[in-house]
């Protein structure tokens, strides 16, 4: 197992390396440059040239990349032009906020998705199944940024049960209850689509397993229905569902871009949006690198879990 994990980690290095080149090239291809973005109306060619020189952007793209990758090996991701602070500080701070949000959402969508899928499969064509299928359809089809605004409107503006934005109260607070209080609405919003996807998949996987001979055998032996479903059926169904949860982790981090913007969550998604619009190349580069690395790790983790669940894969 350790060798497998090491092999997978090594394989991730060229992927991440290629990614940094692609990001560099994309950022170079989109029109506009940081100096123009910073100077706005005052972006005369003369001012732009002077600022580019001071920002070290008058070098060729290749030189810039070589400098960047050289610094990377020393653990230095450079300094953001727009924030005037080290990229690493900003990216780590932002990424931990995203991890809290995306991690919570992932737990929520796994729990609710699996439960809904099981109930739906066990009560196939029953009322519970119909209601869950309908909710799942609505959940998958609802744009999450819209849902976020509606939840803000109901729970923050009208009922005043939850704050409308931010991660901690701006005075006092900063403890765990305060965090949960701020986390509830964005985490729920972010988990809705993934919950739907996981519920659908669990339902299909469970239905397939429940028709297998060994389930009939288990029932024939006189095992309780609860034991049949959770011990026998669910465990095999889970093998098919776990990699999808791994993929959903990627979607949840991607979806965090909207949700973080709507809820002003200080995560890496909203950071990337701003960094791209201000052409802050190093910040984009650092952010993408961290998100991609996390995605690789999530998938690796999902694969490991799957291997542990399914003896055939060992």
């Amino acid at each position, binding site marked *: 197992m350790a060798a497998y994990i090491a092999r997978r980690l090594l394989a991730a290095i060229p992927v991440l390396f290629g990614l940094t080149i692609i990001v560099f090239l994309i950022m170079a291809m*989109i*029109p*506009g440059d940081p*100096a*123009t*973005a*910073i*100077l*706005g*109306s*005052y*972006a*005369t*060619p*003369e*001012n732009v040239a002077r*600022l580019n020189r*001071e*920002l070290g952007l008058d070098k060729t793209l290749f030189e810039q990349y070589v400098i960047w990758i050289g610094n990377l090996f020393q653990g230095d991701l450079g300094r953001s032009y*727009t*924030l*005037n*602070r080290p990229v690493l500080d*900003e990216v780590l*701070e*932002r990424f931990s*906020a995203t991890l809290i949000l995306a991690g919570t959402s992932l737990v929520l969508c796994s729990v609710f998705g699996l439960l809904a899928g099981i109930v739906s499969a066990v009560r196939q064509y029953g009322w519970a199944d119909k209601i869950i299928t309908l909710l799942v359809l609505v959940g998958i089809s609802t744009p999450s940024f819209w849902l976020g*605004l509606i939840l*803000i*409107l109901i729970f*923050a*503006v009208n009922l*005043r*049960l*939850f*704050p*409308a*934005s*931010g*991660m*901690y*109260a*701006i*005075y006092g*607070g900063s403890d765990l*209850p*305060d965090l*949960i*209080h701020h986390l*509830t609405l964005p985490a729920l919003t972010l988990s809705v689509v993934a919950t739907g996807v996981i519920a659908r998949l669990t339902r299909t996987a469970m239905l397939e397993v429940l028709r297998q001979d060994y389930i009939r055998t288990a029932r024939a032996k006189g095992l309780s229905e609860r034991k049949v479903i959770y011990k026998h059926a669910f465990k095999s169904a889970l093998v098919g569902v776990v990699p999808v949860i791994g993929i959903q982790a990627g979607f949840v981090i991607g979806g965090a871009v909207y949700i973080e*913007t*709507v*809820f*002003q969550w*200080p995560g890496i998604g*909203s*950071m990337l949006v*701003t960094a791209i*619009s201000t*052409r802050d190349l190093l910040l984009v580069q650092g952010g993408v690198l961290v998100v991609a690395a996390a995605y690789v790790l999530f998938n690796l983790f999902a694969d490991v879990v799957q291997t542990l669940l399914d003896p055939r894969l060992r």
Partner: protein
Amino acid sequence: MKKILAAAFASAFLAFAPQAQAQTPPNVLVVGQIAEPKSLDPHAVTAVNDFRILVNLYDGLVRYKDGTLEVEPSLAESWTISDDGKTYTFKLREGVTFHDGSPFNAEAVKFNFDRMLKEDHPFHDTGPFPLSFFFSTVEDVTADDETTVTFKLSAPYAPFLSNLAYPTGLMVSPEAVRTHGKDFGRNPSGTGAYKFAEWDANAKMVAVRNEDYWDGAPELEALIFRPITDANTRIAEMLSGGLDVMVEVPPDSLQQFKTDESFTVLEQAGPHVWFLILNAKEAPFNSKAARQAANYAINKKALVENILQGTAEVAAGPTPPAFAWAYNEGLEPYPYDPDKARALLKEAGYNGEEITFYVTEGGSGMLDPIAMGTAIQADLQAVGMNVKIETYEWNTFLGKVNPGLEGKAAMAEMAWMTNDPDTLPFLALRTEAMPDKGGFNSGYYSNAKVDALLEKARQVTDQRERAALYKEMQEIVQEDAPWVFVANWKQNAVTKASVEGFKLQPSFFLMLQDVRKPQ
């Protein structure tokens, strides 16, 4: 299972209910900003969003008089200008200290300008200083004694004083720059009414009352600036009680706040002008008649009332009325007159050839550029102009427009916000300001008389004399119509009704020194 879940939810709701009333504490003002500040080093930033914070932490040698764009003494008590307009001598206020305890004196002033302007200054690398060209005419700064400082300019430059009142002219503590180096922008120290206390990245920036403020300590204990980039979220936060003040309210929501008694809505015209650059080098707008036709054809009143929903006023000429002292009150906006436009187009020999119109998707001061561009296209089409719109993202758009419109487009949207009536016309309407000479005259307007007036207005330091020159310039430019003059934006803000003494300034800065919020 269900019961457990239900119980868990119920207890969660109850647990949070008491602290859920997101009310802001008394004597603390929470301001909703549109973005995270880039830096709190006033010389390193360019955005109004950052200026709103900085003018509360720092003072300049001079500042804008309340409610105007005219300068008055601040850290400098008085000044004299030499007859040739090239030497400015300032007498500094005595006994002022920076928040870090170091003294404010002539040496400190010299340090501030040398850091920005001299590439060999030991702290020049704490930049870059994107707007340092505001002071590009400054040749030398000397500290004559503790409280006297002299600026030598390379040429007479009348906007110098109003540039000093701009945030780029705010005074930072040399001691703090020496201590923090490149991180000064996150550890700021000035002389302002509020002292920097805490910056929690992407969540809040806190400043507390400066008890020793030379102009009288403010009544508020603290200011908290919160960055909330999404306009809808900002509104929700305001409605749910998490903000005391919010700026840049979208027009749609302004009405809602106006009808709600728990809020106060403020509006203030500023030094902003929204216009269309017309390409005077190529047909059809190489003809003055065609340029005037465009001005007559566009229904500016409808744009301002329907699309901008009253958040702007119709512009009459190149200079915004907010520059009250330099604004020509006699100018009337071009009336909406499609028939006259048709006649003028005929006179210009235009026969429905297709013309390209550059429209931006957004951008600083651009208001609602796509909707406005579409309405303008429809108005021009109604008088027989065949307008094709090309839309670009802001940075791309600037990259297309700033180098000049020749061979690419007949017209382009543009907006400017400036601090002196000199800036925009000098950079965008002079023959010497054509794109190939490093200026913003992207439509290639050229009128020797306008050039002369603008040059002269830089050299005379008497405000009344300067004003007369600008007024004459506005008349000529309006008649020549190098642009379609469309709108002057009014900035707005909403406060809770409990906030007292809050005012908006024509400079668009947020001066919070005299604000109170007892409850």
